[in-house]
């Protein structure tokens, strides 16, 4: 894991999160101006809740929730949360890694109702389980589909 870059240590969002929980941020990086924070898997829901409700930060809008498969690296899956603050007009990207043995993370449907289909889509296409999701079932693929199409080891074309 990358240590916190010096220029980012002073970032107000990071300082707020450090105050909220000292181990809540694993690393922080900035690429082309976009701030990305890596969060431990166990903390992701709590961090989202904090960022949403803390009045001075107010990341009140969930823009997107998706997953990236880093096969064959481990931990293999990376969940990516794009948050937006309508008040400060800032964007923030949160990432958390889950392993292929235990692809499971806490659901954030309790914070944003809109996360429901995002999480169902990730379950459908990557096979990640969301603890606390009200009704986790496939979204795009047929109900009885085998396998998870967006995984990197899933073939692009099947037998014809």
């Amino acid at each position, binding site marked *: 894991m990358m240590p916190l870059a010096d220029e980012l240590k002073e970032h107000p969002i990071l300082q707020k999160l450090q105050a909220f929980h000292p181990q809540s941020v694993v690393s922080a990086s900035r690429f082309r101006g976009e701030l990305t924070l890596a969060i431990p898997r166990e903390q992701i829901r709590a961090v989202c809740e904090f960022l949403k409700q803390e009045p001075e930060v107010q990341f009140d809008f969930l823009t997107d929730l*998706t997953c990236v498969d880093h096969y064959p690296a481990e931990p293999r899956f990376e969940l990516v949360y794009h948050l937006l603050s309508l008040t400060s007009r800032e964007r923030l990207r949160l990432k958390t890694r889950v392993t292929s043995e235990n692809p499971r993370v806490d659901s954030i449907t309790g914070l944003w109702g809109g996360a429901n289909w995002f999480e169902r889509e990730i379950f459908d296409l990557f096979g990640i389980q969301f603890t606390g999701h009200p*009704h986790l079932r496939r979204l795009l693929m047929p109900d009885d589909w085998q396998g998870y199409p967006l995984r990197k080891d899933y073939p692009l074309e099947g037998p014809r």
Partner: protein
Amino acid sequence: MPKPLYPTVPSAETLVLNVGPQHPSTHGVLRVVLELDGETIVRATPDIGFLHTGIEKTAENLFYSQVVPLTDRVDYLASLSNNLAYCLSVEKILGLEVPPRAQWLRVLLAELTRINNHLVWLGTTALELGAMSVLLYTFREREDVLRLFELVSGQRMMTSYFRIGGVALEPPLTFYDRVDAFLKMFPSRVDEYKDLLTENRIWLARTRGIGVLTKEVALDYCISGPNLRASGVNWDLRKCQPYSSYEKFDFRVPVEPAGDVYARYLVRMEEMRQSVRIARQALEGLPAGPIRADAPGVILPDREKMKSQMEALIQHFKIVTDGFAPPVGEAYVPIEGPKGEIGFYVVSDGSPRPWRCRIRPPSLLNVQVLSKLLPGHMLADAIAIIASVDFVLGEVDR
């Protein structure tokens, strides 16, 4: 064992009605399972995926430049907006500076795309509520917009006109006169639609107070774009987080507090007028200069140079056969699409193909919120509500 459609079994007192996936008023292959008590909807469950074509998976196996035509097919009513969103994300990873002329052309065409999208929306929504003539008028104007697209790109719908680093070609000279004529004519056509609908008693009765999306629910369900503005939230990415030089254009963002079908109609009507304003400014202030960024090895060289310079020909050959490899990184540049915030989250691993190309679909969220909007309404209003949120199933299912 697959899970059932519902978390709980429908009660024996209610009737389950299956709307779609083959139903004219679902605007494509959308299935909505309605649980009815008499004529009142008690539960609505949208079921999607009938048009899933794996666009994100396909994109991972193509060169960056080859993904552009795929983005046309995501939301086929707003193909240029999708082109723009994808190009902006890749350009950000590459660190490319797009020349002003290309940015202005992008703004001009993105606004024509918005008009095109809203015309289809208005026509089909009115058709759903029995005002068939509106559809005929809006499709007449839409045809003009599609001809403009054809003029610049050679295609009416699958344009692929915006390319990474700029636009594909210099538009033909007739294009500017045709756009000018369209922009002169179009506001009077919007007045025509207004005369047909805005104070029409039947239209008011069918749309006012129907399908109220409160500000709280809209934010909870990640709704963006015109639907969010019709719920009283003043949020437009063209103003709040400008891209492609939108900060240099003068326009107004319409906001309506009511959140009902009528508010969503009013917002889109005004947006069409504002789009004309922006397009007019883009047309008149169009700067001179190149239409593609100067980035050898990434952007295709000019065709003229290719015919006279060996170096340019080799470059062209290399880019087409091997692609180009952006630095390792990721970018998400959302834009204000006609249906809401659309953006491509592109992850680069330093190879010529995107490692991940996630499409943030506004249509998906607009469909998801139906489960919140429909309950409590009569069955006949479901048609108005489904039509009013505006989605394209190609984008919902991708």
